[in-house]
């Protein structure tokens, strides 16, 4: 799973947002806000990662149980998929 071209994550005054540029603007004209964990997962997905790899990375980086990590990643990936941001 990988973030589609044209969706860029930026930090603006301490806030994480995703906006579309180039041809992606035709499909998505909004602004997405992410928290720190969201931006952490997003950066992994920019390079391409499976849900399993995301979970391993999250467990390494954050003090969180496997159960919660699995749930949160599932929700995050579903949101990205529904919004058409990943391929």
């Amino acid at each position: 799973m990988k973030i589609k071209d044209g969706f860029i994550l930026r930090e603006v005054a301490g806030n994480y947002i995703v906006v579309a540029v180039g041809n992606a603007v035709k499909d998505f004209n909004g602004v997405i806000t992410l928290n720190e964990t969201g931006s952490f997962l997003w950066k992994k997905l920019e390079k391409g990662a499976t849900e399993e790899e995301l979970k391993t990375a999250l467990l390494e980086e954050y003090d969180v149980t496997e159960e919660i990590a699995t749930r949160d990643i599932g929700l995050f990936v579903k949101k990205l998929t529904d919004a058409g941001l990943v391929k």
Partner: protein
Amino acid sequence: MPRYKIADVVFDAKLIYGYTEKLCKKYEYDGDEPVKFVAEVTQEDIKAEQVLAEEFPPAYLESLALFRKLCNYCLKNANGIVFHSSAIAVDGNAYLFTAPSGTGKSTHSRLWRELLGDRAFMVNDDKPMVRYEDGAFYVYGTPWNGKHRLDTNCKVKIKAICAISQAKENSIRKATTAEMLITILNQTIRPQDQEDMDKLLKLIEKMLTEVELYKLGCNISREAAELSYKTMSGDNL
């Protein structure tokens, strides 16, 4: 070919219809400053505007196309962005009220003029230009001035930006950068080009840290204007 100076940018305009020339009359320029660019509005530009706002006549769409070219130039070359807002100046400070169309930003700035009389004047009631120059943000009047046709050909230092929403009771508080970031992004033109997008985000970041940010819930009353003016200006009237 008419020559204009808007937001301190001198440019020539190649236009098709008379409407835009009339609209920009107050901003005609015959001074010695160098011309920064030529804005040529083509039928293709007008068609592109039509896709975004189809119910308007071509002459009006031409004025929007010219505006887009100016905004594009300002973002690329002049640290400038359009900020959809009602910008009012009081005692040399500018206050920008922003909100989705129909919320009441023009109404609120009118209440300020009623409250403050001659001390207040409109910089622009709809699409002012904002520029970052020498460490400060300034707002400029433009001819794209909204349905009440309110603008002044001027430049005023920005003191505060205020996001407005309708409310029964009046209340005001400082806005967070997170809230205002989304507000500003939704009330400006977002470029497609990635380099331009990064310029825009850098400018907005500066704005969020250097300008005072407020959130106002208000009804239509003198009390609403008093509350927002006193809070943002620090002046007790």
